[in-house]
């Protein structure tokens, strides 16, 4: 079994898309540098969150504010959307099939939007229990970390909508392909950050 050769992180487009594949080598490396700087940003926010765990100042803490069930559903939504994005990438790489690609991308977009909707619902139910950013250091750190991830997912969804529009107007040209490969990396990366959030913030807070 030969493994496909890898020229850049993420799914490689390979010989079937020679022009876009060549362009990706440089573009994806630059994007990868950006992703790693983003990882440092998230890592430090995780660090701040941990130092602020005890700083509830008499306000509501994790047990009063977090719900295991909705954290679990959000995790499943994001993980599944990562998988469906992978399926979209494969449809692009091997089938060159616009219909199948768009179908998987729409499924991914819907899962992403469901995640954002559920997260917003969580934040509003936290606010109704007195969990607002200005209440305590703990809540400031929480609202610095988790909504920043949600903001990333929102921007990724907007990017996905823009790419769907580009597919409709230009078809599967070089720009669209390189854009899809980079968005794929962002999407999988955001799922990795979410592993940290559900493990540390939700599961760590609720035990």
């Amino acid at each position, binding site marked *: 079994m030969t493994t496909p050769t890898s020229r850049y992180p993420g799914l490689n487009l390979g010989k079937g898309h020679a022009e876009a594949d060549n362009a990706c080598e440089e573009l994806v490396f630059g994007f*990868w540098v950006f992703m790693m700087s983003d990882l440092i940003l998230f890592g430090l926010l995780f660090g701040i969150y941990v130092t602020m765990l*005890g700083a509830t100042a008499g306000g509501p803490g994790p047990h009063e504010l977090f719900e295991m069930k909705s954290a679990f559903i959000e995790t499943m939504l994001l993980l599944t959307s990562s998988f469906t994005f992978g399926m979209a990438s494969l449809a692009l790489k091997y089938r060159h099939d616009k219909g199948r690609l768009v179908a998987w991308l729409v499924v991914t977009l819907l899962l992403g939007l469901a995640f954002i909707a559920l997260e917003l619902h969580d934040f509003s139910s936290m606010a109704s229990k007195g969990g607002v950013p200005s209440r305590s250091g703990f809540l400031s750190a929480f609202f610095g970390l988790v909504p920043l991830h949600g903001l990333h997912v929102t921007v990724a969804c907007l990017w996905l909508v823009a790419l769907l529009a580009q597919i409709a107007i230009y078809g599967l040209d070089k720009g669209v392909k390189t854009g899809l490969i980079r968005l794929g990396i962002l999407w*999988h990366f955001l799922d990795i950050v979410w592993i*940290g959030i559900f493990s540390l913030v939700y599961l760590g807070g609720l035990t």
Partner: protein
Amino acid sequence: MTKRTLSAEQENERQYELRTYILGYGLALILTLIPFALAAWGSLSRMTLWWVIGACALVQIVVHFRFFLHVTLAKNKREDLQLILFTALILIIMVGGTLWIMFNLYSRMMPSIMP
């Protein structure tokens, strides 16, 4: 849309990459379900539970890098792996240092805030 016919080699490669995603998804699901199940219904002590959650999270991060982002230990492309390892080093120094300093400070100045 005309359906492309794939050569045997391409079909092999497609099957391989499809299996990669399915295997990655399966592993990630297991590594998500274990900590959630233990946290919801398990009766482990708090400390053991934290270790299990942390270990599952670390393994799941590696799974995502390997199966979804296709970062491998193969010889053909190393810069992306080096970049991850360097980022991890920076994070260990900065986050580890922050936690060390802050918790040392808490234990000396305000023990009540220690979790």
